[in-house]
């Protein structure tokens, strides 16, 4: 047979094997599972391409696991199913069959590309920020191919189906235990899945992840696995020599790629990131709309309309604005510790000092802080986030201060409680009218799983209310924000049932009075001509001695939450 005929045989055999691979229930199940995993990883958070591409790659890892198992089954099929003697009698050698098996991995490419394409379409449709990281996406495809090559290498030596399962398990474990290693070494595993730092970046960070080098590593591993598979089945001494050379080259490339990934993130990039974190004014784009200042990182400009909507919804119903301005601003909450590997201690100390100084002056009651990466893409989560912005805007409008006891970093940190203050009900009413969340969702915040929620204020148990999205971390300043009370919510809910014009008239006629923290819920209810809703009819009293609070400082020995007094 001529070499062209041999190539034709390889192609025909590869096509047959690829067809089996594509139609394999295992691969189909893996594709569905990987899609589900990517979907879960995306969650409801607004996708950022520099993070989403890596998350899609984790889906590719799941696909790679099943391709590994399927490839091992295919490569070991003849021996496992008692056909080794028959196969030996064919003119097509074991080495040629292995070449065909390796070529058949092209059959996994459509599944990988389908996953990438579908995930990318979803990411884009959900308003992804940034541009697709092609190198990272390509790495996902190479990961699938490399996994398949590893499966073939295993299958040529071990035909038992369990061998493929164990191989897949080993790959999965390397990916999911990468947190056990520190620094840049996490990039050496086939796919690092616990990369939550990426979601907190305000834009792509050069060298993080080291996508090009990782692609090279995966390609090197794919060639290495293929070489091992061929070495097991190659009959000719000359072929083994060539394979040894190829294996050495592949190993060298893999090691080089590994070394490249161990390099620290470039100083310039981290300098810029620290500046982006500490000196917001120097990097963010600020615009003023309706006298409110919005400061966002350059990549996030498209979020402006969705932020203006709840703010303007409150402002439109506010009888008078406070004298001090309000600012809506993005902030970075990521921990730089994980990014500074490989840099000198002095350099790291310098960056930390910059960040410390910046934190000292941050978080005031005249700003709404939005952590990068936590703003939802849509659905009920966006409604919740809008409510959080609206309520914070309304609290600024009615002058409820952001007071607290303790340090935010300590376990004793507790926000102030606007106990029996009419302005709280007004703020909640404003937020509800601005965003129109469902009554059921609002009502659900009165209790949690049948447990009473409340804080200790002045030795009294105060039932509290958890507004939609309050615990989701849509706002960085939520820890400083006042703790809403159940009474305030119930009065606000009653106000919503009244004609808006009537309520607005009552509020506007004595706005200064309502802003006074001494003005009570009962007084507001009386002015509106409605009975004060009774908490006891909706929220059962807590068992004696039990106080379930919102912060870590709960229980009978919890410190007292402060009253919002100014």
């Amino acid at each position, binding site marked *: 047979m001529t070499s062209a005929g041999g190539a034709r045989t390889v192609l025909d055999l590869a096509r047959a094997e690829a067809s089996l691979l594509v139609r394999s229930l295992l691969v189909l199940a893996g594709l569905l599972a990987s899609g589900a995993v990517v979907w879960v990883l995306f969650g409801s958070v607004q996708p950022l391409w520099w993070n989403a591409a890596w998350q899609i790659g984790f889906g590719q890892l799941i696909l790679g696991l099943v391709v590994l198992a399927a490839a091992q089954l295919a490569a070991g099929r003849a021996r496992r199913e008692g*056909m080794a003697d*028959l196969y030996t*009698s064919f*003119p*097509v*050698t074991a080495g040629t*069959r292995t070449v065909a098996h390796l070529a058949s991995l092209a059959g996994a490419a459509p599944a990988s590309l389908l996953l990438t394409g579908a995930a990318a379409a979803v990411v884009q449709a959900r308003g992804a920020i940034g541009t697709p990281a092609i190198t990272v996406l390509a790495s996902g495809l190479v990961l699938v191919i490399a996994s398949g090559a590893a499966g073939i290498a295993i299958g040529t030596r071990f035909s038992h189906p369990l061998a493929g399962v164990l191989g897949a398990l080993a790959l999965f474990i390397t990916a999911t235990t990468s947190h056990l290693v520190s620094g840049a070494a996490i990039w050496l595993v086939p796919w690092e899945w616990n990369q939550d730092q990426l979601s907190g970046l305000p834009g792509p960070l050069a060298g993080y992840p080291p996508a090009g080098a990782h692609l090279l590593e995966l390609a090197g591993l794919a060639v290495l696995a293929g070489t091992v598979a061929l070495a097991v089945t190659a009959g000719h001494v000359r072929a083994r020599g060539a394979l040894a050379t190829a294996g050495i080259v592949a190993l060298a490339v893999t090691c080089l790629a590994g070394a490249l990934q161990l390099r620290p993130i470039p100083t310039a990039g981290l300098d810029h990131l620290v500046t982006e974190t500490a000196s917001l004014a120097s990097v963010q784009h600020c615009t003023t709309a309706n006298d409110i200042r919005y400061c966002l990182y350059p990549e996030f400009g498209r979020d402006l309309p969705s932020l203006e909507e709840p703010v303007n919804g409150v402002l439109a119903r506010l009888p008078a604005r406070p004298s001090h301005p309000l600012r809506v601003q993005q902030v970075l909450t990521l921990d730089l510790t994980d990014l500074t590997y490989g840099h000198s201690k002095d350099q790291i100390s310098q960056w930390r000092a910059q960040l410390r100084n910046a934190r000292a002056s941050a978080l005031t009651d005249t700003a709404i802080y939005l952590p990068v990466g936590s703003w939802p893409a849509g659905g009920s989560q966006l409604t919740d986030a809008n409510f959080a912005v609206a309520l914070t805007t309304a609290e600024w409008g009615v002058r409820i201060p952001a007071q607290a006891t303790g340090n935010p970093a300590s376990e004793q940190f507790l926000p102030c409680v606007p106990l029996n203050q009419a302005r709280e009900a007004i703020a909640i009413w404003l937020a509800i009218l601005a965003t129109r969340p469902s009554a059921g969702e609002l009502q659900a915040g009165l209790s949690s799983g049948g447990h009473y929620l409340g804080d200790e204020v002045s030795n009294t148990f105060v039932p509290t209310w958890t507004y939609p999205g309050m615990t989701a971390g849509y706002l960085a300043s939520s820890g400083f924000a006042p703790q809403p009370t159940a009474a305030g919510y119930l009065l606000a809910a009653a106000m919503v049932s009244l004609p808006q014009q009537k309520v607005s008239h009552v509020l506007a006629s004595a706005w200064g009075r309502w802003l006074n923290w001494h003005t009570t819920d009962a007084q507001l209810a009386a002015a509106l001509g409605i009975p004060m809703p009774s908490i006891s009819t909706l929220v059962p009293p807590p068992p004696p001695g039990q106080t379930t609070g919102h912060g870590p400082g709960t229980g009978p020995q919890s410190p007292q939450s402060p009253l919002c007094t100014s």
Partner: protein
Amino acid sequence: MDETTLSVRTAAVRVHGLSRRYGSTRALDGVDLTLERGITGLLGPNGAGKTTLLSVLATVSEPDGGQVSAFGLDPADGAERVEIRRRLGYLPQELGYHRHFTVAAFLDYVAILKEITDRRRRAEEVARVLAVTGLEDRARARIRTLSGGMRQRLGIAQALLGGPELLILDEPTAGLDPEQRLRFRELLSGLAGDPVIVLSTHQADDIAAICPKVVVLLRGQVHFAGTPAELAVTAAGRVWGADERDPHAHLSWRGGDSRWRHIGDEVPDGAELVTPTVEDGYLLLSHAAGAR
């Protein structure tokens, strides 16, 4: 070596001084054999070395000693071994199957492994062997759904793919019902191209029916090579019938007519001699080898 050179070589299989050991067991012990075009039956009890001999002929096993030549090609040489395999159809004794393949897909896959790269020719070949083995209506069936007999026919079908010049069938009639065995005999007898066919079997009547030549292998050695008639003749005058069992006979068994059939060296006076069969000749040889 180019293909032209290969094709002008002599068209026979020669085995000389072939030996093969498995540990301390000598499976083949100086086997000399010449196989011409046509069907050669290989008879022998279990453990006689039939399967080992066939696997060596099929280039699956390598002998410890001796030479094998097929169509003038030496299987010890890598390139010539591949050339032998291109002309080979092989049915191992214990063949597993890719149970999740369909019958047609399996045959198509094997056809690729036999280097039939032209897709149309491959499809024609698959259709042809399905027809000759009577599996056309099972082409789309999964192999796991086939009966044992059907699987055996599928094994024969794959061996026939590509029209091999050397067809090695290790107990091909095992698992076939009488009708299928008859059909199989017809099939082998009607194969085009006059290939060299070697089949091992325990069925002496199969040998008698279709094999112009028979080889009896006992304890790794060739004890007989000739025509079935010649094998039968070796028992002439040593087979007799009787109403009672003869304790002096080497072998005795009762036939369908309730009469005893005896084989032995000393025929009793007045015994009713019967015409020996291939099976008689084989049994006598087998007994003699066991007595040594």
